[in-house]
């Protein structure tokens, strides 16, 4: 497992995809952050001007929109990070090396998944520049920040599991990325359908299946075991499915 992990990390850092993705991710996030901050300073000057008594909530005006933007950005970026994990090996034929080396399929999968997780961790870690920048001006609610990061990390881990699964299905990286985006969007939208069946138990099930629904509490600074467990099980499910797909190469011919 460690060998595959090390190899994947090395390839991530030598391929341009990682640099392109993180550049765009950070740029877009920087723009959002700048917008939110200028909006906030505008509001602050208004409040000062009219001597209003309402306090300004940094959390509500800057942090929450920023984190929710981050979750949307991750939705697009994680499939791109995940797409090469198996598809590239299939297209180049290197899968034949990997599957004839004495490593179990599950260890290969774990190595690849953890490499993806590390890349996501690095991406999220880099956004701490924004948090520190903000910390120089005001003191944010660090509890909220931490719980939001935990939530984002968990939701990104679920996206990654879907991405790995899609990557197992095809040798074409673009198809892998698009189909994982499709699956992610489907699990995002699934919550909306709960309104259609409102009142029935189907509504409850659909509502609980929505990927983004479980993020809300994290972004409000609440840590729910239920939500964390949901993301973990969701990831495990897709990793398990990936393993099944990989095993099928032994009987599909």
């Amino acid at each position: 497992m460690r060998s595959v992990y090390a190899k994947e990390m090395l390839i991530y850092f030598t391929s341009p995809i990682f640099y392109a993705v993180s550049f765009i991710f950070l740029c877009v996030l920087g723009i959002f952050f700048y917008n939110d901050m200028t909006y906030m300073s505008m509001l602050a000057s208004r409040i000062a001007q009219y001597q209003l008594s309402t306090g300004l909530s940094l959390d509500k005006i800057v942090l929450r929109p920023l984190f929710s933007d981050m979750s949307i950005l991750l939705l697009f970026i994680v499939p791109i990070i995940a797409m090469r994990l198996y598809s590239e090996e299939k297209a180049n034929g290197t899968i034949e090396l990997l599957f004839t080396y004495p490593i179990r399929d599950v260890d290969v999968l774990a190595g690849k998944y953890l490499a993806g997780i590390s890349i996501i961790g690095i991406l999220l870690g880099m956004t701490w520049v924004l948090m520190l920048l903000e910390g120089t001006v005001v003191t944010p609610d660090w509890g909220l920040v931490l719980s939001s990061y935990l939530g984002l990390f968990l939701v990104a881990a679920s996206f990654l599991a879907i991405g790995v699964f899609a990557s197992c299905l095809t040798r074409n990286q673009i198809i892998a990325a698009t189909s994982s985006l499709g699956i992610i969007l489907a699990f995002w939208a699934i919550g909306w359908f709960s309104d259609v069946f409102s009142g029935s138990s189907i509504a409850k099930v659909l509502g609980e299946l929505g990927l983004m629904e479980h993020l809300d509490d994290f972004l409000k600074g609440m840590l729910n075991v239920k939500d964390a467990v949901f993301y973990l099980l969701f990831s495990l499910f897709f990793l398990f499915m990936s393993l099944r797909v990989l095993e099928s190469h032994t009987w599909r011919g």
Partner: protein
Amino acid sequence: MITVEGITKYYGPKLAIDSISFEVRQGEILGFLGPNGAGKSTTMRIITAFMPPTSGRVRVMGYDTVDDSLEVRKRIGYLPENNPLYTEMKVESFLRFAAFAKNVKRKNIRATVDTVVGECGLHDVRRRIIAQLSKGYRQRIGLAQALINDPPVLVLDEPTIGLDPRQIYEIRQLIKDLSGSRSIILSSHILPEVSQLCDRVAIVNKGKIIAVDSPSNLTAQLTDHRIIEVYVGERMDETLELLKDLEGVVSASRFNSHIQVETPKDMDLRPVIAKKIVEAGIPLMELHAKEMSLEDIFMELVTEEEV
């Protein structure tokens, strides 16, 4: 070392290999010879535990490729068809990964990589990115990764394909040097290669093994007649008539510069032919028995199958 027991493989409804059985002994190089699409790569993929056979089984050093896949994989070095490599990696880091993945002990990895780099002549390129290297070097890297954990069994799928003659020579030399106590299976559709390198040859066509034996035995067994080539200075037509009437001659026919005489396998008519021609006063320039090459046998077997 390797026992292949009646393996059959279907790709969907398509039969790729049909109850193939053979054995490879320790220290032996077995050549797998056959036209493209004969099932060579499929057989190799089954032996290396990349995929299971539809029926039958393969044992490598006593381990079943399906039930003890990991044990088999520990003992096999495999150079797959088209030699896939992680081309974005540097030669050294790729070999380090291969060593690590093949359970070479941490503290031995450096020494192991140094050894294969030396064996495969990769000194000059060890810090280069694989994508920038020539095909010859890549082939050596493919061999190097196969060798890295010093496996007792090597499976090489078309190791010399796409190389220039000098590189082919070098790779062959390398394979010869590697053999020692190892068992090697290599596939090829180049005949001289197989006859030069291998102790035994398995000829495959359309998913079946048509013959397994040493190159010389194959030649001896499969020739059912002897061909004698006769070169005369002049009066070729006259000579042809003369030879046709000779007792024991199956047929005689004229080629551009010589006459070819076919005689039964167990009869050597050379002295008789020579005497006859000289007696007739025709200048005899040259006369020799034509060795049937592996190529002829191969063509014969493969075409026989098709009829």
